[in-house]
Structures are given as structure tokens and as C-alpha cells.
């Protein structure tokens, strides 16, 4: 197929006449268009043109090859390639001549000559099948009337069995009776032997309950040629049971996975608020954070629950920030296990820095970590100093000389250097801030 090639000059002419601008303007426009696309691509950008497509750079890895003359190995260097992905609009318009074709699922291999018509045949397979079933039925009756040899009748019986696969068992028996009555007395013996088998087989097939248009496609053209359906056509039919069963299994796996995931999401959304609530109630009853907590009524509990669901709807799985409690001194006489719980509470809540111990000026050689060591005993807790002064420190690694740093007053439990959880938390924050 020789394709006509359109040069850019012709494009310019066409655009000029369509947009009713001068050719020079169109030429300049096209030039600018190409240069700007190129520039953007060279800058590593993706260029998208509406209704046309996307240009993108694609890196092709270097690969080994062989010099055809000498047989020596050479390495082809990697290179960039401009990849163009057409827009759906363009794709559809270009593919217009083949737009009516749809992918067809096949379960049996189709002969080459049938493949071309595959799409059309599949469009109405049931009608074609029934038509051909009638044809074959008529043929069988003709054969029965003409021939009196036993081999012919047995073949006919097998043929009928195959035709009636798609029908109900009753139909099969009725048909057999009709044939029976039309037969001579000589043939009767033969059919009586066949009869008990046929309903059984028909039942077996009907229980499988499969309808597959693709097989019908395969069978029907063969029918024309061989008049009778051979026994072979039964085997592909039985083979096709496997895929459908597999599909059913897949369906079940999908359903189970879906239900599991939904259960998990339910748990995920309900669990944190509930645990938080219990923790809070323990805290409230134990060390009177809230003065009214002693006679905390049910309505307050309900309020706190609703608070968890509304204001703090984003679950506490991302404790980026840390709270500093307002009243630190009251907590000295707490038991160890409650301490752990309240620690988690501190970790999970947003922070407020209100009180400050001191103010420091940054000099040459000042380090947040050194300050942390001086005030809190360990270097790791510098992150809290950074958090308290975030708005003045754009980059924790480079603090301008002369910056005033306020040292926040921290809850003694939060900066417990002997507690591995505190250290771990501080390091997590460290990883977040220092990247």
C-alpha cells in the first residue's frame, strides 16, 4: 500500500486556507509550534495537545548487538525517543473503518477461513444453530426413510443426540419416540438398544448447563459438509466445562476478598476512636485533667465520641505532630501502665506550644541538637525545639545566624531519655523533618 505523503508545505497551505490567514502567518505558526514542542520535550516535559495526542520522551536502554561483517560484539548506546500517544478522539476517528469490530471470545480454535467471518457469525449464533438443527433433522428423516441398513440408523441416533443437547430432556425423549414410530420393525431392535443410553447422556449434558455460542460456530459449518454431526463435536463441548468452572472459582475469590477488605475498613475506622475514648476516660478518671471529670455524665461521653468522629475524622494513624499538655506537674504520681497509655495519647494528638523555658540566639556553631542536650538531656529531642520554632526555621539544617529560638517547656514524660518509646518517636519525627 503506497501512502500519499503530505509535506509541511501542504499542511501550511491547508491551514492557511482553512483559518483564512496568510500563508506566511501559517508557516510561522507551524514553525513556532514545532519549536515549542521540541523545547518542552528537551526540557523533559510532556506535551499534550488537545484532541491530538501526547508527546513524551522515552529512554531506550543501551543494548548489545553484533557487527554483521566481523561478528564482533558492539554496544548500541541508549537514546531518547519521542513517543506519541494519540488522543482518544484521534484514535477513534482514524480507526473508523474498523470501529464496528469487537473482540470475540473463543473457546475453540477456529479454522482460518472462518476467522475472517468470526465477528459476523458470532452476532446471531442461536438463530443459525436452530436453523441448522432443523435442516439436519429433516435430512435424518430422509435418510431413515431411504436407507434400511443398520449402520445408517445408528449414525442417525448419534446425530440426533447431539442436536438435542441444547433442548430439554423431554424433547429428546419425544423425538426418539417419533423416530421409533416411523421405523420399520427390523430397525426397532436396534433403537431399543440405543434408547436407554440417550436420555442418560442427554441428562448428563443438561445438568452441565452450558451454552456457548463459539462452539456452535464451529459445529455449524461442519454440519453442511458432513450432513451429520460426528461424535467428535461432543468432545470440545465437554472440554469447555473447565473454563467456566474456573471462572466461578474466581468469582468466589473476588467476593471473599471484597468482603474481607470491607471488614478491614470498618475496623480501621471504628477502632481508633473507640480506643482513644477508653484511654481518655481512664485518663480523666485517674488524674482529673478535666475538673468536672469526676462526675462525667453519659452525655459527655457521647459528646466526646461525636468529637472523635467529626473533628478528628482523619484517623490518628499519622501522628506527625505532638501535643504538649497544659498541666504537666499533676502527672508525677502515675502508675507505669497508665503512663504508657497517656504517652500514646501525647504522641497521637496535635501539639500546642504555649510555655517556653528560655530563648536562645543562634550563633556560629549553634546546633539545635546541642540545645536539646542542654535543656532535655538528649540530642534526639531537638525535633521538638524545631517544631516550636517552625515558622522561623525554613530548613532545620541551615539556620540563619541571629535567629531567636524559643525552647519550649515539655512534658517530662515526653523527653524521658530512659523510655525507648520517646526516643523512637523523636527519631520518627527526625526522619520526617530531615530528608
Amino acid at each position: 500500500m503506497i501512502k500519499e505523503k503530505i509535506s509541511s508545505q501542504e499542511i501550511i497551505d491547508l491551514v492557511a486556507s482553512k483559518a483564512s490567514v496568510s500563508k506566511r502567518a501559517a508557516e510561522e505558526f507551524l514553525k513556532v509550534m514545532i519549536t515549542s514542542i521540541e523545547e518542552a520535550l528537551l526540557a523533559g516535559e510532556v506535551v499534550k495537545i488537545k484532541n491530538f495526542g501526547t508527546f513524551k520522551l522515552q529512554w531506550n536502554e543501551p543494548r548489545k548487538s553484533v557487527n554483521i561483517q566481523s561478528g564482533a560484539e558492539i554496544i548500541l548506546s541508549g537514546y531518547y525517543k519521542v513517543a506519541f500517544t494519540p488522543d482518544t478522539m484521534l484514535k477513534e476517528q482514524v480507526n473508523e473503518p474498523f470501529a464496528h469490530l469487537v473482540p470475540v471470545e473463543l473457546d475453540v480454535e477456529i479454522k482460518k477461513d472462518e476467522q475472517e467471518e468470526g465477528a459476523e457469525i458470532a452476532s446471531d449464533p442461536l438463530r443459525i444453530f436452530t436453523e441448522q438443527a432443523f435442516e439436519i433433522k429433516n435430512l435424518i428423516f430422509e435418510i431413515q426413510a431411504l436407507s434400511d441398513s443398520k449402520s445408517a440408523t445408528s449414525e442417525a441416533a448419534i446425530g440426533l443426540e447431539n442436536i438435542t443437547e441444547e433442548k430439554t430432556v423431554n424433547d429428546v425423549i419425544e423425538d426418539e419416540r417419533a423416530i421409533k414410530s416411523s421405523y420399520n420393525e427390523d430397525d426397532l431392535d436396534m433403537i431399543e438398544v440405543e434408547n436407554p443410553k440417550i436420555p442418560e447422556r442427554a441428562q448428563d449434558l443438561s445438568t452441565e448447563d452450558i451454552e456457548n455460542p463459539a462452539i456452535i460456530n464451529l459445529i455449524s459449518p461442519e454440519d453442511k459438509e458432513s450432513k451429520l454431526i460426528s461424535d467428535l463435536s461432543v468432545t470440545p463441548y465437554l472440554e469447555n466445562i473447565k473454563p467456566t468452572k474456573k471462572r466461578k472459582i474466581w468469582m468466589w475469590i473476588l467476593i471473599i476478598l471484597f468482603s474481607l477488605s470491607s471488614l478491614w475498613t470498618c475496623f480501621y475506622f471504628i477502632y481508633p476512636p473507640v480506643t482513644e475514648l477508653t484511654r481518655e476516660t481512664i485518663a480523666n478518671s485517674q488524674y482529673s485533667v478535666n475538673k468536672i471529670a469526676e462526675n462525667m455524665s453519659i452525655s459527655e461521653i457521647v459528646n466526646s465520641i461525636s468529637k472523635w468522629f467529626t473533628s478528628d475524622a482523619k484517623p490518628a494513624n499519622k501522628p506527625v505532630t505532638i501535643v504538649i499538655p497544659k498541666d504537666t506537674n499533676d502527672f508525677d504520681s502515675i502508675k507505669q501502665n497508665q503512663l504508657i497509655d497517656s504517652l500514646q495519647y501525647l504522641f497521637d494528638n496535635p501539639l500546642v506550644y504555649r510555655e517556653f523555658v528560655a530563648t536562645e540566639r543562634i550563633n556560629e556553631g549553634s546546633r539545635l541538637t546541642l540545645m536539646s542536650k542542654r535543656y532535655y538531656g538528649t540530642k534526639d529531642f531537638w525535633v521538638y525545639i524545631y517544631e516550636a520554632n517552625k515558622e522561623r526555621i525554613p530548613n532545620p539544617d541551615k539556620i540563619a545566624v541571629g535567629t531567636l529560638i524559643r525552647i519550649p517547656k515539655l512534658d517530662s514524660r515526653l523527653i524521658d531519655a530512659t523510655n525507648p518509646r520517646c526516643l523512637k518517636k523523636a527519631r520518627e519525627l527526625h526522619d520526617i523533618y530531615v530528608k
Partner: protein
Amino acid sequence: MNNKELIASMAAKMNAPKSVVEVLLETTVATCTELLVEEKTIGFQSFGNFEVRKKEERLSVHPSTQIRTLIPPKLVVNFKQSNILKDKLKDLPHHD
């Protein structure tokens, strides 16, 4: 760079209003689409060729379910960069 940004940068280069550039770009796209629908090859000097290629029908097999599917033939647009553009791209350093 999306359509709007492209138009903006082109308008800046041409000293023309954005609306004019937009109309011109739309006509160009429409013209190219028309030509491609007629299965013609479009060659932009120093940039590359747009070409319509026919993908033949094929038989695909689903790897897990073993279902065979006949994929019909289709026409696709293919872009091949010109050698000039390829040489320009050679200067780009590769970092990954």
C-alpha cells in the same frame, strides 16, 4: 505541558494573542486529523512523520484463564521522529 501552557508559550513567541494561536492550533489539529483519517502520511520537516498503520487481527490468550480472544484489526497513528530531532535528543543527559 498541557494545551493551555503550549498555547501560552507559543503566543509569547509569536507576539500574537492567545485566542488567535488557539484557533490556529485547532485548525492544524483538525487538518492533521482529516489527513490521517484519509490514511495519508504527514511529514513535518525536522520533527517527524505521522503515519497510519494497520494492526492485523490476532489471537490473544488470557494468561490465567486461558480464554482465547480474537482481536479485530485496527488502524493506529504512529509517530516516527526525524533524524534531526533524534540528534538533538542525543545531547540530553540520561539520569534515572
